[in-house]
């Protein structure tokens, strides 16, 4: 059949294999890899049950927000892990810098009184 064009390698039982990736503009391996990187990175948060908060579960690539949400559904909730998904462009996350680790976190190190460890807990209280 001529209708599938010359840019297919094989037809039949193994399926026709595109020699170029759909979003790629160049046919070299490096070009294809570069085109893949053009899809932005998204961070995925899943809420596993009502009443719990969303937890970060991983990241993925997607061309835009609606597709990121769908990809997250397929990649991260296949085994009934969630009831709600957030996707956030990784570029939008403002992260603390490793260089600022000391001023950011060290001052809390010697303030043990901030931990709730100075109370007597009645024996009847469970799961605390």
């Amino acid at each position, binding site marked *: 059949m001529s209708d599938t064009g010359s840019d297919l390698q094989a037809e039949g039982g193994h*399926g*026709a294999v595109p020699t170029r990736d*759909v979003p790629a503009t160049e046919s070299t391996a490096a070009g294809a890899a570069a085109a893949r990187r053009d*899809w932005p990175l998204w961070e995925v948060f899943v809420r596993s049950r009502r009443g719990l908060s969303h937890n970060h579960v991983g990241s993925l*690539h997607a061309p*835009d927000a609606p597709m990121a949400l769908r990809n997250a*559904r*397929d*990649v991260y909730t*296949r085994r009934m892990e969630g009831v709600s998904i957030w996707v956030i462009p990784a570029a939008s996350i403002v992260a603390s810098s490793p260089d600022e680790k000391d001023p950011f976190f060290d001052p809390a190190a010697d303030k043990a009184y901030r931990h709730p460890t100075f109370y007597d807990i009645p024996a009847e209280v469970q799961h605390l």
Partner: protein
Amino acid sequence: MTTSATTSPLATYALRLGDDALVLAQRLAEWSAKAPELEEDVALTNIGLDLLGQARALLSYAGEVEGKGRDEDSLAFLREERDFLNVQLVEQPNGDFAQTIARQLFFSSWQLAVYDGLTSSADDTIAAVAAKGVKEVAYHHDHAVQWTLRLGDGTSESHQRMQAGLDRMWPFVEELFVSDEVEASLTEQGVAVDVSTLRTEWEETVGAVLAEATLEPPDASWTARGGRDGIHSESFGYLLAEMQHLHRSHPGARW
């Protein structure tokens, strides 16, 4: 030789729906580890697994109704090409990603309407399979729509490929809406859906997607027929060989 003439209409009907799902599941599995992106790899094979689940339920039921002791495995792996009753659309080769999406768009739009109707089938098993499947297929349809919009209204390359995919699959659409005596008798009993009544809605749904995606509705110079009677296209034998060879080489092999 086709066996459909000797079996009950209900068994034939379940086999048709089951074969549609089974064959498309096999095609989608061919994308495993080959899709343009890891995320799409998972999406397409997920869709395939949904369809495989539907196929298992429907083939098991077909075997049960038929009453000749054939289970889902013997129906899937031990029938010859002429005994498969799927529409030719689902057996068409994957081609490039756009061609696969075109096939998904056409088939899922149809399957969604069929399953939606079958949720109120007079046959409890068919109704139960449809009730579970309709949620799965709604997602398959959404996936195909999203990609049709992005490829059609994307770059000139993606637009051209999406249009080519639609043109490639279009001749196989007609067959989706051909009703026959098997379906007519079951429709009378409230078991089946008369597919000929679904065409207008299908054309409106698909037409709206194509318009938004800046794609042209294809014009078919010919139309495929015969899948429901066991007539298949050239590539189908290769698909069956790959799907069946393990079971035939190692009867009863288990994972």
